[in-house]
């Protein structure tokens, strides 16, 4: 089937969604997705950030679709023409969605462990406004521990439901879910119960924001000061692939996560033993530094050697001020 997105044509199999067709094309025309997760069946359609305009339904029925559609849940038709970033209507609607997602978000990025790898942060930078029009108290919840390794900071949650799908599809049974409704909805276990089984840690990786964080990594470091390294081990758990990213601070492994692709999705899910208990370099076979997009804040100062302006090199005051940067250069 042939589909054209923002003028880029591509041939895809029947049943492919617009979003996945766009991902095959790649680049700026890929709609952002906050709730869709290709590895979890049934996700998507909820956050509405991936809305696109279908300007031509198909070769057979060329009528445009009357409303914007969620590209993650709309399958392509032969001859379909889609507008994403070439449609002012889409950009406007997306701006609206981002605003909605942010009105009750605490914007506590300076103290949030997710900062630097937060999809909402990226979305806010790309589509958000500098000032909010919302002048009311924001919704807040108490922080709770769901299990000894995972913290739920519901105030930051955007209700993407991904963690619920993880619990349904990856773990053996689900203990947490969505309670209440409307803007009172919350992720919860209802009564204090520990979410504890071999794969529960994956809820941290799928969370697009800082609502579910790794307690073993909590406040340890900003991600952009860590060094991500690809590694693997022979995991005893038959369902675990054992392929991870280790996040180093100096000589110490301070965090273990699944390997994530360019859309921030885990390539394969990992077990809690790999994630929480294997924090020594000797536990792992190191493959090499993780490739991080040069656009990401995580890559800053790591793999590109520092090329300071001549004035910094010659002026002793500036040299002193950038001392740490120069040292990092020699460390790497």
């Amino acid at each position, binding site marked *: 089937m042939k589909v054209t997105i923002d003028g880029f044509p591509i041939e895809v199999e029947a049943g492919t969604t617009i979003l996945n067709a766009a991902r095959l094309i790649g680049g700026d025309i890929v709609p952002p997705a906050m709730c869709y997760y290709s590895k979890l069946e049934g996700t*998507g*359609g*909820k*956050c*509405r950030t991936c*809305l696109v305009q279908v300007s031509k339904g198909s070769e057979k029925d060329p009528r445009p679709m009357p*409303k*914007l559609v*969620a590209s993650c*849940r709309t399958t392509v038709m032969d001859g379909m023409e889609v507008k994403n970033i070439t449609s002012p209507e889409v950009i406007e*609607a997306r701006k*609206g*969605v981002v*605003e*909605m*997602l942010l*009105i*009750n978000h605490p914007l506590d990025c300076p103290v949030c462990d997710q900062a630097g790898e937060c999809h909402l942060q990226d979305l806010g930078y790309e589509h958000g406004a500098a000032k909010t*029009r*919302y002048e*009311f108290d924001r919704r807040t919840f108490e922080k709770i521990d769901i299990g000894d390794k995972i913290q739920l900071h519901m105030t930051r949650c*955007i*209700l993407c*439901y991904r963690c619920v799908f993880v619990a349904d599809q990856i773990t053996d049974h689900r203990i947490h879910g*969505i309670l*209440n*409704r*409307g*803007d*009172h*909805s919350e992720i919860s276990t209802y009564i204090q119960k520990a979410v504890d089984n071999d794969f529960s840690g994956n809820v941290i990786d799928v969370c697009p924001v800082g609502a579910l964080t790794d307690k073993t990594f909590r406040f340890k470091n900003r991600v952009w000061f860590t060094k991500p390294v690809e590694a693997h081990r022979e995991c005893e758990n038959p369902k675990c692939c054992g392929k991870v990213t280790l996040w180093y601070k100096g000589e110490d492994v301070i965090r273990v996560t699944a390997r994530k692709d360019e859309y921030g999705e885990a390539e394969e899910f990992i077990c809690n033993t790999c994630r929480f208990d294997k924090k020594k370099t000797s536990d792992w076979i190191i493959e090499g530094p993780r490739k991080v997009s040069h656009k990401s804040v995580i890559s800053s100062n790591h793999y590109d050697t520092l090329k300071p302006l001549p004035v910094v090199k010659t002026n002793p005051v500036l040299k002193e001020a950038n001392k740490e940067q120069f040292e990092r250069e020699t460390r790497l």
Partner: protein
Amino acid sequence: MGRKLLLEHINVPGINTFDVYRSKGGYAAVEKALKTLTPDEVVEEVKKSGLRGRGGAGFPTGMKWSFLAKPEGVARYLVCNADESEPGTFKDRFLMTYLPHLLIEGMIVASFALGAKTSYIYVRGEMMPQIRILEKAIAEAKAKGFLGKNILGTGYDLELYVQPGGGAYICGEETALLESLEGKRGNPRIKPPFPAIAGLYGCPTVVNNVESIAAVVPIINEGGDEYAKLGIGRSTGTKLISAGGNLKNPGVYEIDLGLPAEEFLYSDEYCGGIANGKRLKAVVAGGSSVPILPANLFLKTINNEARLMSYESLAYGGFVSGTMMGSGGFIAYDEDQCIVRNTWNFARFYHHESCGQCSPCREGTGWMEKVLHRLEYGHGKMSDMDLLVDVSKKIEGNTICPLGDAAAWPVASAIRHFRDEFEWHVTDAATAVTRNYGIAHYADPLNTVVA
């Protein structure tokens, strides 16, 4: 005086019992359909009747039925949507209370047409008395051989069950209703697939409103063509209008579609005018979701023609100067009512009823409510009206289900038509909390449009 197809025997004592209902010609449609027609012929009659869904969307019922997928060996379901919760609408409660057998008769005929062997009536949980009435009526019909195995010796089997909801407006949306019927949270599904392909338990399913199902009975009795002779244009047949608000005679009325709005509102046969000798300020013609209109625009279209109670005439003028038939929840506001307060009230309703699944509706409905609350209580700003319109636009059309639109339209339309009243709540905030704006110019004759 229009013909009464649904409510003809409403005043007969004991019409809620099987025997009295039968003695008045009840269940004739079941006999006719099952004994003399094929399922496809029943569908054809409904198509010919031009019946449009009475739940709000107005989609042709016969067409909806013909979309039902019929794969071999897969069960098909008919589900009746009796989750009536749209503010202003109370016709289904009325019909189930007084004429339970009419609904059951319609369910049997419609189930036969669709090939359903098990059908459900999903009644909102708050209507426990109606649930008891329906269960009693189903037991009566079953005892008389109109339900169960081999109905009337025709070989057709049908089980009919009543399912209570749990208290959620959103379950009136057909896919949320199906989720709820499956024992889940009432989160609307993402479409496609539509229920006609994958509905209840993933099987092909038709969901119809109570009144649509009931209307199948006269359609089969009299024939689709006869039914289509009533009404006007593409608004065929009769419609139940739930009339409430500041009316002299509120209640449920069966009207021929096409009845002049003025006659409906003021004649003694129907609403009898505004209560307590007051004047009409505004009308919500089809349930709280549809755009509110000031009195003058409701009675006359922008072209100065008399507004009729039909799908087309009510919608005439689009969102600029028209409204919608919706579910037929007719609310009249007299000169003492405050539009800002009412808009806030509706916004609170949608905020309360949003399922919270998709972000524009979850966040936007609460935001609109808060802004309207501050306007109503004297803390508003002049910029709030533009803000509300903008937020409503950010919700409208961008959500999974129509609740987003339903939340956006009342706010946007109230500001469109009553902006001066909103502004007065800002400029004269201290006064606005003590008294209402009054009727202002909302009932004045329309300016003649000059080309």
